[in-house]
Structure formats: structure tokens, C-alpha cells
């Protein structure tokens, strides 16, 4: 419909808010309470404008005309209107610049500043503060408020990660609304009323996995990321817009660095992927990159000890030691969050050496690439029937949030030239959620289950059978057939529930099935999941264990034969190993094997059990410090960009290959990001150097995934310990003090009855061998864990799945009661 903003005429879609129309017209209006992707509430009153519209005569349905001009007469609202909560109307006229409007805006700035301390010189938000900017643009520059301002707590720790300055809060309610509207965890609220209103919590910390986003959306310096407080001024930061390698969601990040170190991580904007949200593991889990013990130079073992040396020397050493070695006896393994470019480099190295022993870890037994209709995150967000097998909150937090989008049932709004809608009027506070569209199945109670219409916790050992039974039942009823065979309720779902699920998925038009390592670890479960999805006509989204597991599979960074996979690298057949960012020596049996190798080359950012055994250690960059490309969970290619972090001579794996090539006297493909991208262009028909920050969908492979579908049986269907996904990366926990303080140590979760039976109390610290790896864990009681089962978080070296816990060998390191005393 046609409207006019000041003198600009424009055409807007019905339903648009006036504030978005104003911005679309290239004009500006200040605002504090509106926030992209959240409900407009009209609270700050900063966005006031004068608004008028023509009216129709009720009787004739004709426009009432202005007698003088003969044009439709404009009826002005008697009061200034909040543009964020007003919808456009045909013929509407908006005035944001006249004297009256300026006076009102000026007054709102003045009111907003009444209780604001104006401590900008010492505020972390200074230079990036919406209030500072708007007060400058729309304020009168002087304050007529001469009284003492409201004194409140200035350093209130809402949690270990977030600090609240109550004096600076301008009550925009963004943070409070955020918790209700986005993660659905109402852990923050306004307390008191009127001029006494403040935000606070009665919970212990802020129990939600998505708390950090409030520090991004707070328009002032009231909510601050504790890890970066008092570190630097905004104008001193260097910003790097990149993609998270923390999990497979591919969330956009903005890394703020200063003098060679990461000061903080903020969410970037990617409308299709993470909107403007990231999870706390991703945001606060970066401190490790700055740890004291970073490896910054190559080291070579001389007379039993590792000594620092140059890259050229280290490379020469390697070249010399593998010269004449049987190439098929050399293994190369990358961690699943390596970039595609690193994958190309690793392949080039393997090819050069003539080795088929190339793999990424952790890698599930089954493919993580969809073979039917692949779902995008947008498909998830607009789905009308969701079936989730797994724990997306911990696996890829953004998937959790996009599922919650779907429960609201509001189609994503198209982007404006100025970005996402500032005020999407279809979003409301406390919207009813369509929980009934969500079914979740996992071997323990997951956080997301509280939002689900149906939640099933089958015994961990019968997940496979349950999926099989579901697939069978779904297949049998494809054309209205009747289910054959008996149904076993002991699988964790009744026949009626199964039928309801099948009917719901099948009758929907936008059904999506999501699964993760719990399924992919077992090829039979994977097969069943794919059959089920196909027979109910659902698109699929498969959560890989690591950020780029899918991408590396897609470009076949895979063993030439199944018997050459990662596990085979720790058999006597292997003589030399290149391990990038992996630490298999946490398993003592593997460590023994590594000692027997002729050559162990470790590419790592930190000393590990494995690097301690290495002959050559090469310094590695972290995921924040490399250029490259990753493929996210929905098959979107996304750019990874290096933030300027001081890391000595550390490189990514392309750098390793470059140095080795030089030592070998050859130029390998993948010896630089640029050369790797030439290979990628051939493989994927995409110029990775040209990717926009928001990435580009990669057309899915038709039919079977290109990667070999391995048939290894990693996961066993028995065991009393379940390794579960974790948003907080356990391997970095020691080097992430703030995150650790808030989220706690790696937990051994069990039902209170189970703990009781073993004489354990919440808070005890134990070392428990799980699947042969001694794990140090803090005991935590949880009603959500089935009795008799032990839950521990995954490590790259210990993928999600069932294992045996050696309870007889459990050692209590510290007891909770002793600690209290």
C-alpha cells in the first residue's frame, strides 16, 4: 500500500509497522525498546511521530475529501504515535521531522536520561551505546533534571557470565522479553513497579543456555559480558565477522579483538541461520584461545625432550623420518571442525604420501549428509510438524532456537533494505506456543522437552529398536495400510503414540525430522530414521558431532577403505601419524600404542596427553584464527575468517602442508587457503573466497551421499554409561574460567536413586573409567536420567553413544561434604 513518510512516497506491504516504513523510506526515528526478531511493545516512547490517514465515508465507502485540495483529507491522530506499534494504512502520512515531533522526541530523551548515570567515560558500552548515540542525535544536549539520581547496584552479577549495572538500565524490557520470547526460559523479570522497577532474578544464576544474547541487545551498558568487562573501549576493537566452528549450526559471529587477543564474542546477523542469537558455549567459550600455555612455535623431540625450533627445521625432521616409509602405513586425522580448506590440504598430503588412512574425528558410523529432501533451518523454523531424536540444545543450540520459532508459527518476515524488521507486529509478548507440533525422543530428559507436546525417553539401549519399529509402522501405513505386527510399549512409546506421531507427520505439509549422533552412530538406526522420514514425507536435518563433519564428508576427507578409518590408526599396522587437534592419548591403551609409532606429528594449540608423546609438535591456530570455509547443518557454505589474534607462528593445516611440501620439495594442492579453494571450486563449483558472511546454500547431493557410508560399529547398543552432547566443550573447560564458573565442571549425571545405590552425593568429584577413558567428573543428581544410567559429556575423543562404565574402578577424588567443611 502507498504511504508517505515526510516527503518520501513509498509502497509497503500491509502489516508493516510504521517504524519499518520510516526506515524503508530512508528516514530515521530513534528507538530503544524495539528489537529485531522480538515483539514490539511501545514502551520506550522514543519512536514517536505524527501520523495521519485518510478516512472512508462509512456510507459511501469513498474517501472523505479535503474541500480545498480535493484530495483525500488527512485525519491526524491527536497525539504523537509510537511508530513501532502502529501499522501502516493506505494513504497514511507520517511526519518524523516537524517541530512538534522533535519536541516530543527531545522530551523522551530527557525522560530517559532522568535516572541514567551518564557514566559513559567508564562504561564498556561507550562508543557503541544506542542511548549515547540517540541522546546525541535527538537530545537537547542539556539536562534540566537537577536531583540526585536513583542509586542502585552497579556491579550486580546476574550470573558468572553477565554483570548488571542497575543504574544504567533504561527499562526497555528487551532482556526480559528475550528470555520469554526466544529461549522460553523466564529467568529474568522486572521487580517492583513505577520508578522503582528494576530487573532481577530469583534463580540461581541465570539457568538458561542462551543468556549471553541479552548483552548484545541491551541498548545501554547495563548488561555486560563479564569476560570482557573493563577490557577495552569499543573504538579500540577490531571486528571480525565470521562463522562459529563451535557446533554445526554455522552461527554468525563477530569477534572483537584488541592488541592480538580476543576480548569478546558477539552474535552476528544471519537471518537464515542464527538471526542474531548464539548460545552461551559459543559466546563465552573463547577464553581458552588466550590461555597461557598456548603452543606458539614448532617443537621437535631431541634426546627425549621437546625443544622449540623453526617450522623449516620441524618440517625437515618430518620429511627425513618418513622418507622411505611405506606411505600406506601413515595416517592423517583431522578434527571434525577443520575447515574445508584444511580438508583439501590433508587429502593432498595423504595423496602425496600414498596413504588411504585419512579420516576426521569424531565421525559417526553413518553419513551425516541427508539423501532425501534436506531441511534448512528456515524449514525448521516454519515447520508444522517436528520430530526430534536427540538433544539439539546441546548439539547445535541454534537448532533449538529455530525449533522454538516454529512453535510460534509466525513465518519469517522478509528483510528490509535496512535489515530485519525492527518491529514485526505479528510477534507478541507471551505468544501461545504450538507445542503439539513438537515430538522429542531422547534417552534422557532434555531441556527442550519442556517445550514439546510429546516427549519420550526410551531406554538408551532400545533407541535403535524404537526407530526400527517406527519406520516399519510408518512404511506399513504409507497408503492407508494397517500396521502389521505387534508393538512393544517397552520401547518407550505406545502404539497409539506412535500412530499419532506418524499421522501428524504425514498429514503435515512442512514436516521435518531432526536427528543426531544418537542415531548416526548406529547405521541401523540411521537407516530406520531415513526410512521413517521418507515414508512420512518429512525433510531431514542431521546434526553432525562437529562444526564441519558434514562438509569434510562432502569433500570426501575419508579413508579410502573402511578398514583405514580413525580407529585403525591405533593398530600396529600404522607406523606414523599426523594428528590435528586430536588427543587420543586420553585413552591409556591408545597412548601405549602411540608410544610405539615411528613418528607422531601433532598439530595442536595446547599441550595435551598426545602432544606429550609426539616427536614433532606443530603450533595450531584455533577456530577463531583461521580463514576457510565450513558447511553447516543445513548444507550452507559459510566463510570462516581469521581474527587478528597473536598466536606466534601457529597455522592451520594448510600451513602444515605448505611447510611439508617445501621439505618434500614439491608444491602440494592445499598448501594455502587460496590453493585449497581452487580445489574446492572444482569439487563444489563454488568460489569460497567470494562467499558473503551469510553464506550460500550448497545444492544437496542427489541420491546417496558422496561420502562412503561406513559400516563401522562405533556405538554399541549396550552399556551403562551414555556419553551425551554438550554445548560447553569439555576439552576447553579448564581454560575457560568464566564459563566453567557458571556452568560447572563436567558432570556425571545420574538419577538420585542410582547415586544413592553407589554411595555418591551431588558434588562429589570422581574419576570413572568410561569406555576405557578415565573421566574426571563432578557427580550431579538429576531426575531426568533413567535409573541405572550414567551420563557424561562428550569429548572429541569420546563420541556420543553408549559405553561401559567401570564402576568398580571408580575413584572418589573429593567428596562434596568434605569440600563444604
Amino acid at each position, binding site marked *: 500500500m502507498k504511504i508517505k513518510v515526510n516527503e518520501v512516497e513509498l509502497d509497503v506491504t500491509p502489516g508493516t509497522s510504521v517504524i519499518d516504513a520510516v526506515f524503508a523510506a530512508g528516514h530515521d526515528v530513534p528507538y530503544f525498546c524495539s528489537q529485531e526478531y522480538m515483539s514490539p511493545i*511501545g514502551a520506550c516512547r*522514543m519512536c514517536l511521530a505524527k501520523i495521519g490517514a485518510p478516512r472512508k465515508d462509512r456510507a459511501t465507502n469513498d474517501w472523505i475529501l479535503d474541500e480545498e485540495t480535493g484530495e483525500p483529507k488527512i485525519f491526524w491522530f491527536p*497525539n504523537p504515535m509510537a511508530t513501532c506499534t502502529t501499522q501502516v494504512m493506505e494513504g497514511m502520512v507520517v511526519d518524523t521531522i516537524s517541530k512538534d515531533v522533535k519536541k516530543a522526541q527531545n*522530551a523522551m530523551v530527557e*525522560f530517559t536520561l*532522568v535516572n541514567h548515570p551518564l557514566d559513559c567515560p567508564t562504561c564498556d558500552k561507550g562508543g557503541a551505546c544506542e542511548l549515547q548515540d540517540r541522546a546525541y542525535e535527538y537530545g537537547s544536549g542539556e539536562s534540566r533534571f537537577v*536531583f540526585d539520581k536513583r542509586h542502585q547496584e552497579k556491579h550486580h552479577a546476574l550470573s558468572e557470565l553477565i554483570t548488571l549495572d542497575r543504574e544504567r538500565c533504561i527499562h526497555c524490557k528487551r532482556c526480559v522479553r528475550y528470555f520469554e520470547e526466544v529461549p522460553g526460559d523466564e529467568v529474568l523479570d*522486572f521487580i517492583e*513497579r*513505577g520508578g522503582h522497577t528494576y530487573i532481577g532474578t530469583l534463580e540461581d544464576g541465570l539457568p538458561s543456555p542462551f543468556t549471553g544474547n541479552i548483552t548484545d541487545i541491551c541498548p545501554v551498558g547495563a548488561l555486560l559480558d563479564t569476560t570482557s568487562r573493563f577490557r577495552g573501549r569499543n573504538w579500540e576493537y577490531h571486528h571480525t565477522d565470521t562463522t562459529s566452528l563451535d557446533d554445526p549450526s554455522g552461527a554468525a559471529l563477530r569477534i572483537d579483538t584488541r592488541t592480538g587477543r580476543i576480548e569478546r564474542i558477539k552474535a552476528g546477523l544471519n537471518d537464515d541461520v542464527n538471526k542474531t542469537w548464539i548460545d552461551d558455549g559459543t559466546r563465552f567459550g573463547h577464553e581458552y584461545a588466550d590461555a597461557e600455555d598456548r603452543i606458539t612455535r614448532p617443537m621437535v623431540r631431541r634426546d627425549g625432550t621437546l625443544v622449540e625450533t623453526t617450522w623449516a627445521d620441524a618440517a625437515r625432521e618430518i620429511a627425513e623420518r618418513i622418507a622411505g616409509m611405506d606411505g600406506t602405513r601413515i595416517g592423517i586425522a583431522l578434527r571434525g571442525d577443520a575447515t574445508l580448506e584444511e580438508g583439501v590440504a590433508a587429502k593432498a598430503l595423504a595423496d602425496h604420501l600414498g596413504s588411504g588412512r585419512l579420516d576426521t574425528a569424531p565421525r559417526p558410523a553413518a553419513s551425516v549428509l541427508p539423501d532425501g529432501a534436506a531441511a534448512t533451518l528456515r524449514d525448521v523454523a516454519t515447520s508444522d510438524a517436528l520430530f526430534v531424536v536427540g538433544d539439539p540444545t546441546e548439539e547445535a543450540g541454534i537448532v533449538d532456537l529455530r525449533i522454538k520459532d516454529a512453535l510460534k508459527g509466525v513465518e519469517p518476515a522478509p528483510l528490509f533494505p535496512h535489515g530485519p524488521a525492527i518491529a514485526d507486529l505479528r510477534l507478541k509478548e507471551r505468544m501461545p506456543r504450538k507445542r503439539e507440533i513438537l515430538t522429542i525422543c531422547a534417552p534422557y530428559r532434555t531441556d527442550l522437552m519442556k517445550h514439546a507436546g510429546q516427549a519420550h525417553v526410551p531406554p538408551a539401549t532400545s533407541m535403535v529398536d524404537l526407530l526400527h519399529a517406527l519406520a516399519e509402522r510408518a512404511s506399513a501405513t504409507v497408503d492407508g495400510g494397517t500396521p502389521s505386527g505387534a508393538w512393544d510399549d517397552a520401547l518407550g512409546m505406545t502404539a497409539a503414540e506412535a500412530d499419532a506421531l506418524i499421522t501428524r507427520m504425514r498429514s503435515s505439509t512442512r514436516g521435518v525430522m531432526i536427528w543426531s549422533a544418537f542415531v548416526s552412530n548406529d547405521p541401523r538406526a540411521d537407516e530406520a530414521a531415513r526410512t521413517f522420514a521418507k515414508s512420512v514425507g518429512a525433510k531431514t536435518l542431521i546434526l553432525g558431532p562437529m562444526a564441519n563433519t558434514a562438509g569434510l564428508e562432502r569433500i570426501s576427507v575419508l579413508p579410502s577403505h573402511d578398514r583405514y578409518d580413525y580407529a585403525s590408526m591405533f593398530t600396529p599396522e600404522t607406523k606414523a601419524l599426523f594428528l590435528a587437534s586430536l588427543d587420543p592419548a586420553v585413552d591409556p591403551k591408545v597412548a601405549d600404542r602411540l608410544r610405539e609409532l615411528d613418528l607422531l606429528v601433532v598439530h595442536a594449540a595446547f599441550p595435551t596427553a598426545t602432544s606429550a608423546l609426539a616427536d614433532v609438535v606443530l603450533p595450531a591456530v584455533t577456530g577463531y584464527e583461521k580463514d576457510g570455509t565450513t558447511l553447516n547443518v543445513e548444507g550452507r557454505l559459510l566463510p570462516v575468517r581469521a581474527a587478528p589474534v597473536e598466536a606466534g607462528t601457529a597455522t592451520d593445516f594448510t600451513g602444515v602442508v605448505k611447510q611439508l611440501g617445501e621439505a618434500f620439495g614439491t608444491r602440494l594442492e592445499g598448501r594455502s587457503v587460496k590453493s585449497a579453494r581452487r580445489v574446492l571450486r572444482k569439487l563444489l563449483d563454488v568460489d569460497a573466497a567470494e562467499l558473503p558472511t551469510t553464506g550460500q546454500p550448497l545444492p544437496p547431493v542427489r541420491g546417496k551421499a558422496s561420502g562412503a557410508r561406513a559400516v563401522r560399529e562405533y556405538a554399541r547398543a549396550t552399556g551403562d554409561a551414555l556419553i551425551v552432547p554438550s554445548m560447553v566443550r569439555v576439552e576447553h573447560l579448564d581454560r575457560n574460567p568464566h564459563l566453567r564458573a557458571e556452568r560447572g565442571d563436567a558432570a556425571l549425571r545420574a538419577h538420585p536413586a542410582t547415586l544413592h545405590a553407589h554411595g555418591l552425593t551431588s558434588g562429589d568429584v570422581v574419576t570413572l573409567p568410561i569406555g576405557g577413558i578415565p573421566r574426571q567428573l563432578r557427580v550431579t543428581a538429576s531426575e531426568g536420567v533413567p535409573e541405572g544410567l550414567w551420563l557424561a559429556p562428550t569429548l572429541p575423543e569420546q563420541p556420543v553413544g553408549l559405553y561401559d562404565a567401570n564402576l568398580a574402578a571408580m575413584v572418589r577424588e573429593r567428596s562434596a561434604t568434605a569440600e563444604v567443611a
Partner: protein
Amino acid sequence: MSGAVADKPDTITSRHDPRFEVTLYKYVGVEGAHTLDAYLAHGGYGAAKKAFGMEPSEVVDLVKASGLRGRGGAGFPAGVKWSFMPPVDGRQRFVVCNADESEPGSCKDRYLMEDDPHQLLEGMMIAGYAIGATKGVLYIRGEYYHAYERLRDAIEEARQRGYLGENVMDSGFDFDVILHRGAGAYICGEETALMNSFEGLRANPRLKPPFPAQAGVYGLPTTINNVTTLASAVHIIEKGADWYAAMGTDDSKGIHHVQISGAVNRPGVFEVPMGITYREIIFDLAGGPKGPAKAFIPGGTSCPLFPFDDEHLDLPMEYAAVAKAGSMMGTGGLIVIPEDQCIVDAMYNVTRFYAHESCGKCTPCREGVSTWLPKMFQKLLAGLGTPEDVDLMEDMVSNLRGTAFCPLADACAWPVQTSLKYFRNEYEHLAQHGTPLHPRKDRWQS
């Protein structure tokens, strides 16, 4: 109606008119009138029975024809509001009674609920029938404990004897009432804040649209009316629309309840025909001012005040006339301010009320009404003000006008703004001399 509008001798506009009969308040103040038996004894629930014999739309039309306007303050035509309900679609619908009565100067609803609770329940039942709502919500302010008890007992008695519940009075219509107590928040009188409060949320007003008819209580179709609006419906059904419309003026028909307080000889609640003059109310009903008066607030403290002069005393109590003169009928809570009361002190008192009651949602109200304006008054009253402060206050209240999320900020700004208009000299006196023109005096009767 054409021709002479000035005089309409055919309608009742004075308590002196012998045709006027106290109706809603007939049993208010009568000991024992609150029981179901007493109510039935004088024909109680007869109107509901009569309504059940009509089509719901006929009931709505009848209320429309009566000209009944909302008595909660805004004066929206009740029948028109009822007709906004969407077509029946199987969803639960609600009729909500706003019994939060917290506007300073108002107390008409309390007496009605304490002494004649069944009249209100019957009114809710009729409204419920008219709009297709089988559930009523009666939201009563927390301080009204006596009225709460009376209503609680009345509801229980009515349930037990078939006047509430399934198939009331064998009519085939189900109707029950949820009685819900507030807990001390003026803003809960604002209809959408009331709904939030009822739902167990913080009582901030909601965005409109959607209006209650589309999404009210629990997001379901809802009609909300004041206590006396609903009670009026009983008598309109019983006596007809013409009976009601025979009182008042073209613009404002029927009955209102004036609650007169402040410096008058006989404060109290009076049932009056619309169109009655403020002079008649103050002088004839309330026995005249106690000593010289300088101002009166016509409808609760949220209304701009009027100087106590002939022009304003002769105004008819009528929505249009009062609005034209610059104020509002509001709740009919009329407060007379004596000559020797410092107006700055009085307006500080009013401001302090709104400062205390601001919900804190929007900036002008939270920072202006709830924080800055009271501080300005304190400064002035402490003798520390300057003439510039008076200008600043005037500018501030003009900035508060029409900019806030809900009318509460206006409600504070209006009386202050008009006090500055009519009694600026008192503000200036304080600013210049540091002492009020009218010093405090003991007003407590012994």
C-alpha cells in the same frame, strides 16, 4: 430529534424532578439487603429471566437503545461495546466486571457490591447472555475485603440455589463467575492491565489492538464493563430502554452516581440523572461547600480541574458539555477543593498518587510521573523552587500529555496542567517566597 436542543423538558435532569427514582442504589445502605432472599423478595433475577426470553442480539439492541455508557470513566456506549464481540465460534468467551475502583474520589462500586451484590451478579449474567459468555470474571480490588466477602458469599449462595452454574434458573444458559482479588495497584483498573493481572502476570497495560473483544482474558473474546454499567443493565432490561433514556440528555442518558468528597457539608454518594448541574450536586445534594471553595474536580483526580465559578458550576453533568469545558466526567468522583488549601500541596498529593501507581512500563510515566515531577513538587514545597522551576513543570506536564503508553500519565498531567492554568499564582508565590500562599491547617474533625 430536531429543533430545540437547549431545553428538553421531557427528560429528567434533576433530582428535584419528582419522576426521578433511585434505582441502582435503592437497597444500598439497607441492612440485610445483600442476601439472596432479600434480593429475590423484591424481584431479583427477574431481569435475567426476562433477558433469557429474548434473543441475545435483542438484549444488545435494547442496551444500545437505552444509551447506557460505560461508568468506569471513558463512557463508551455499552451496547456498542457488546456488539463488538466476534461471531460465536465455540471458544470460551468472558464478561469481565471491572471492580478495581481505585480512581481517587470514587467509591460508588464498593457500596453497591457490599450492600447489593446480587444486583451486580445479575448484571453480569445479562451481559454474559447478550454476548454469549458463559463465564464471568469479577476483578475486585484487594482492599475491598468486605465487598469481597459479600460477593463470595453471594456467589456461593447463588450457585447453591441455581442462580449461577449450569443451566441457570432452568434457562438452558450456563453462567458462573470467577471472583478474583487484586492486591493494590491502581493500574489494574485499566482494562488490559486488569486482564494481565487476572492471568497472573505483572499488570502492565497491553497493546491495543487487539481489543478485548478479539483477544481479552486468556486471549479469548472478552467484554469488560464497570460495576455500575453492568448493574444498570438489570434495570434497563426490567424497565425498558425508554425508561433509561428518559433521564439525561441526548448525549448522556440515564443515571450516574456522583461521589462527592472534599470540602462539602455532606459528602456522599448520590444517584443522579445525567444532565444534572454541578451546582445542584454540590449545593443541593452535598449541602454546599464547607467554607469558600476554589476548585472542583468533576470525575476523580484523573480529570482536569475546574475553577469553582458559575460558569463551571452550571455545567450539566454530561460527557460532551464537560469535555467541551476542558475536563471529563470520569467516574463521577467529584472533589471540592477549599479556598484555603494550597493548590501546589494538593497537586503534589495527586502527583504522588500517580507516581506510586505508575506501572513503570513506559519512559515518560516512569521517569516523568513517577520520578521527576514529584521531585519538582517537593522542591517547590520545601521552599527551594524558582520561577524557572514553575516553567519547567509546565513544560514537563505538556511533554507528558499524549506521549505515554496508557492514559495514566495523562491522568497525572491533566490536573497539574489545569492547576497551573488557573492557580499559577500559588505556584509562583511558593517559588518567590518559599512559603505557600495558603499554609497547612488542621483539617481533621475532632
